[in-house]
């Protein structure tokens, strides 16, 4: 089985990407995840199942509830996962540099 291709297929769907983004911040139950989407619970369950099968989400039982966690280790399959983090800081620092160059010129 080509797992790498599966991960890319999993994130090709916008709803599944949004589920990853939600769960990345806090572990959530399937019903809490479903509340964020206009789709039916069954549809969201199917998305969660696909994300779990390719190990982007991890299940954890807590009492009677099942919580889904984002599984960061798996993201290593995606070669450039760190690039958005670097780019976030690069964008901020580019802005800082541009602003302060103007600040310098505007100073009396």
């Amino acid at each position, binding site marked *: 089985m080509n797992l790498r291709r599966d991960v890319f297929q999993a994130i090709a769907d916008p709803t599944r990407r*949004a589920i*990853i983004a939600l769960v990345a911040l806090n572990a959530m139950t399937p019903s809490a995840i479903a509340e964020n989407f206009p789709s039916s619970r069954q549809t969201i369950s199917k998305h969660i199942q696909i994300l779990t099968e390719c190990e982007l989400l991890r299940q954890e039982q807590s009492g009677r509830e099942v919580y889904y966690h984002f599984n960061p280790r798996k993201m290593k399959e995606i070669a450039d996962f760190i690039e958005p983090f670097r780019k976030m800081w690069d964008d901020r620092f580019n802005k800082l540099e541009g602003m302060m160059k103007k*600040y310098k010129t505007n100073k009396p």
Partner: protein
Amino acid sequence: MELKTKVHAEEGKQELWITREFDLPVELLFKAHEDPDIFEEWMSHEYGKTKIIKYDIKKHGSWQFDTVDAQGNVLFSANGVFHDVIPNKVIIRTFEMNDSSMPVQLEFLEFESLSEHTSKLSMHIVYRTLAQRDQMLKLPFAQGLSMAHDRLQKVLGKLKQ
């Protein structure tokens, strides 16, 4: 193309380094971190505006900011303390996201003058666990995906009308 901002995250270590050289004297680089009005402007981006609630930049002072979208919804909210502040040299601060299961992280910012007109910032971030570091590294990836999703929803929303 040479990358100006570098991120160094070693396998198996719960810390990371962000380094960047600036075409700015160290005083201006530090000022961009010290002045709350300037800080909130360069920390803002097209999807979210950073709004400083508190920014008491001195030893044992504290800070707090929100990131809000164009409609004024709070997307993200964070707080921390300044453990130490030495002008043009060092800021040691903590960073914690509100309403999140992420533990607090410790950040060492070192400002260095390279020449009269150039300077360097080195950020060393220490996380509570390795898993937390990996998760924080991947948040912009996950949020980037979410923003792509939001844009798509807007387009689809328009089509439906």
